[in-house]
């Protein structure tokens, strides 16, 4: 029997302190242990980006991180993106540009796009497409997503 390990981290701005089995991915930790089901499982092997979260200022696939690894780290998920009663600009432009259909990939795209605009407020279309290449969408064909990110960059 492998014992659970204690993890203390900052999650969406709040301190968290929990026990988790050491072989649990960060994705499963968020969804099953911490009740944050906004982060989605797509491929579960680091290809699709549906499970993207921000860890210590960088986007990562949470399926390829262990929950135990975030001890001492700062993690932001889709749940931390909107302020109470007010969508994040990217969430607003995704709605306006209809940049989603089934919605499974959307939290990952939003977390990725937010990191890009925080780093580079006015990226080119090529740069946006390159940055988002680790996020797969099987519905939209990407154009609407790219336009929504461009619109957010223009209106910021």
């Amino acid at each position: 029997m492998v014992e659970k390990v204690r993890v203390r981290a900052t999650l969406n701005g709040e301190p968290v302190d929990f026990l988790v089995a050491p072989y649990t991915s960060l994705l499963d930790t968020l969804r099953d242990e911490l009740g944050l089901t906004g982060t989605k499982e797509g491929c579960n092997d680091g290809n699709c980006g549906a499970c993207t979260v921000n860890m210590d200022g960088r986007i990562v696939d949470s399926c390829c991180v262990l929950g135990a690894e975030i001890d001492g780290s700062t993690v932001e998920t889709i749940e931390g993106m909107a302020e109470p009663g007010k969508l994040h600009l990217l969430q607003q432009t995704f709605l306006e540009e209809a940049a989603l259909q089934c919605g499974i990939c959307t939290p990952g795209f939003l977390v990725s796009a937010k990191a890009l605009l925080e780093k580079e407020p006015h990226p080119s279309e090529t740069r946006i497409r390159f940055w988002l290449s680790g996020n797969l969408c099987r519905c939209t064909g990407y154009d609407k997503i790219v336009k929504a990110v461009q619109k957010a960059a223009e209106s910021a």
Partner: protein
Amino acid sequence: MHPFEYVRAKSVDEAVAALAKHGERARPLAGGTDVLVMARAGRWELDALVDIKHIPETNIVELGASEFRLGAAVPCYRIYEDDEISAKFPCLVDTASIIGGIQIQSRAGLGGNLCNASPSADGIGPLIVHHATCVIAGPNGTREVAVEDFCTGPGRSVIGNGELLVEMKMPIPRKGFGAAYERFTPRNEMDIAIAGVASSVQLNGNIIESARIALASVGPTPILSSAGDQLAGKEATAENFSAAAQAAIADTSPISDMRGTVEQRKHLVGVLTRRTLERAVERARENN
């Protein structure tokens, strides 16, 4: 997934002790983008993963007077976001910026790429053409292995039980040195090379003093081709590059699989050898 312990090692000795304790049922954890996927797929049954990201030595990024030291746990982004390293090692930028997408580059590094020992690894050829040496720590002390001797088969390397890749070190390029890496994939990003070639040249005027050519995805391991040696003492001309491309093709033993055929892979090695030699020479001339 088979239940395993998570060990956060704070020193090389601690990591080696934890790895030695579990033998082949333990693996180091750096970026996790290969090891966690393999563990989940049941490829390995592990009792422990030893996190090596909190060890000073595996995080080293040091441009010294004669040597560049790159820790085994350093993720890809730390290469291309560093202006000084990017200027001196553009070939490492070539590879660090195409291994996976941004999410993967946040975690995965050239050390893990090397230890994963995939024949198609994008990161190994560039290390080979930069004459990199691997520093390996183990229960009996530290040893060094030339990077071209590191991989022994698909997914296999010289790393033994209890051993850990600590860092790669390579000479700071002299004036007249240039290197480049290119691969062919059907998609632009997030894909596995059907073939990849890294080339480096040391130029003296228009004469190639020495050259290295390394091939990916065309044999059971990344290959240091003999084609580089054949260029030594010759002029940097299109004709000589074409001859080198033919020599590189002769060193391959590719397979046909879902990604590409033997014929396609050999053809690609020829094209990519010429292109990377041209790019390496351009960079060598800029570096004068």
